[in-house]
């Protein structure tokens, strides 16, 4: 299998709470370690990635976290301002128009404008060049919103192209869509847990990305996987210890669910599945991300 390093935009999504930010942080760190200038983007949320990596919060402006690794939390107000300045070109004009209370009110109701500027900022950085002509960022890792929101977020360019009258918004949307759907540029990584709903959501997400957004699923990550530990014989032997039996049985059940979930993902996504085991650490920080990264080595670097 080819590694993610061949692509420039890595989109990470899945059900809420499954470990999207964890996986995005690990992937971004690996990319940076491979010598790629890497930007990891969170979208208008409580920032987690900088915290996982034990750096101060990045905030709404691109910030260097460590060698080759930048982060940003893309927020609507700031993104709108940058976009506004780009279109209107003059700060003073921007202020008159965009800092008008009524205009602000009005902009909120223009369909998908907010998503468009959020995504627009990310796409802008994807095309940004250094003075010597190289990409400013070789890799952009997008820690996308959870399933439903991710689908509507990533479909915005497509939807706008179809519905909005010809004009500046639809032209922007068209450009973005072309990059998003280019399989040489963009790849999705879907994250799930070994539980029914998160797996189902990953399948839904896969279908929607494929059919509506036209983004390919590169791989799935089965996070918090539980490896087999207790054999049937172990469980039988524990029959006389009811409390221990319960604990062992629960562990065994979760291990079976892990196998089931892995199979279901592989069959339906036609993409490789990488297991990241559940970690037992007092705090979930840099050490955890480094460990997760270790399990995603082949996903990033490809098979040797």
């Amino acid at each position, binding site marked *: 299998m080819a590694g993610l390093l061949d692509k420039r935009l890595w989109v990470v999504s899945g059900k809420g709470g499954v470990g999207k930010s964890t996986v995005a942080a690990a992937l971004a760190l690996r990319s940076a370690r491979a010598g790629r200038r890497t930007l990891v983007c969170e979208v208008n949320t409580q920032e987690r990635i900088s915290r996982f990596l034990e750096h101060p919060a990045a905030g709404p402006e691109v910030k260097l976290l460590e060698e080759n690794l930048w982060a940003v939390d893309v927020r609507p107000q700031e993104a709108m301002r940058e976009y506004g300045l780009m279109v209107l070109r003059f700060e003073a004009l921007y202020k008159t128009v965009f800092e008008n209370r009524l205009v602000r009110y009005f902009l909120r109701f223009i369909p998908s404008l907010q998503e468009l500027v959020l995504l627009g900022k990310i796409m802008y950085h994807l095309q940004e060049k250094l003075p010597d002509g190289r990409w400013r960022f070789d890799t952009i890792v997008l820690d996308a919103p959870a399933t439903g929101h991710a689908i509507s977020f990533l479909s915005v360019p497509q939807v706008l192209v179809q519905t909005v009258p010809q004009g500046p918004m639809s032209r922007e949307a068209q450009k973005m869509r072309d990059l998003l759907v280019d399989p040489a540029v963009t790849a999705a990584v879907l994250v799930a847990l070994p539980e029914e*709903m998160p797996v189902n959501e990953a399948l839904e997400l896969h279908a929607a990305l494929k059919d509506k957004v036209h983004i390919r699923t590169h791989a799935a990550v089965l996070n918090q996987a539980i490896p087999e530990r207790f054999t049937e014989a172990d469980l039988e032997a524990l029959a006389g210890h009811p409390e221990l039996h319960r604990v062992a049985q629960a562990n065994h059940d979760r291990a079976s669910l892990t196998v089931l979930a892995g199979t279901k993902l592989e069959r339906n996504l036609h993409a490789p599945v990488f297991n990241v085991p559940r970690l037992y650490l007092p705090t979930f920080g840099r050490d955890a991300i480094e460990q997760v990264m270790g399990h995603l080595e082949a996903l990033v670097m490809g098979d040797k």
Partner: protein
Amino acid sequence: MSTTALGPALAKKRVLICVGSGGVGKTTVAATLGLRAAVDGRDSLVCTIDPAKRLANSLGLSALGNAETQVPASALEPLGVTARASLHAMMLDMKQTWDDLITRVAPPDQRERILANRFYQSLSTALAGSQEYIAMEKVWELRRKGEYELVVLDTPPTAHALDFLDAPNRVLDFLDNEAAKWLLAPALKAGKLGMSLFNRSGYVLRALSKFTGTEMLQELSSFMLSLSGMNEGFRERARGVRALLEDASTGFVLVTSPHPERMDEAIHFSTLLKQHRMEVVALVVNRVHPLPTEAMWQDAATLTPTRRAKVEETLRELQVLAEQDGRGIAQLQAACPGIPLIQVPRFGLDVHDITSLWQTGRFLLGDDTF
């Protein structure tokens, strides 16, 4: 019998709203509360937004739709109890509910135009808080009809707590189209946008149209005008929804995971609820890992070496998780003084049948603790 704050709430409240971040157990808690209230003698409706079929199945229904369906008595058989009142369940179809609302409040000659307008589509699907709003509007409607003694509302995973609490205000805001009039009136009069650069609003408009294109602005303005006919009906309802949220007979059940890293969201949510003068009946900490007991460690020491090693490894893992949860819960308690905190353990498997809903209920109501 109940020893937790949810006992009196189930007995007296008319509306309970389960809120919290994605995946914490809102739907599970909502279904459990409805079930328990019906068994204890109040006609209840669980209004969920979760398309998961297993929830329907666990209530003995083949599917849940936008209509209220009675849960058959046979569904409760495995529990060995009979409900003293009826339990109904429904799954809210957001789009359908918005359409119903428009049909109800729009002047007949405007309906079709509104429903087909793309700005309406974005209001009903994309506007932050519109899903939350329509869910609450539905409850308001149900509450007004008064067929149920208790309505339990399950809410969508909310990325931003404020989207939820602010929803009625945003909808009111949307209707308050003073801004639209101010911006668009001259243009409408002239039949064209941006006629005059000397006119202040014309100037702003021209700049704005650089973003959106003029056609978009024209469409938006005509949509706003077509809405004006239903403003009063809409406005009255939005005010009703807001009042319902603050009503003494309405309570919020804030569901959270015990994980210390996720605590900030729950704390933020509870602070906002307080600021909005909405009552949090209970903070449900769901999926708590219990600490392995001393007896378990002693018992493990009697096993053969390989089994002992496996079991002790598992107990050590559980210990790490339990200690993590303990820290999270302590943080939560400190940040939300005065709000009753109820713990539900993490079960071996998902909560997907009536028996496990019932078991969840025993913890919610304090029949079981750990």
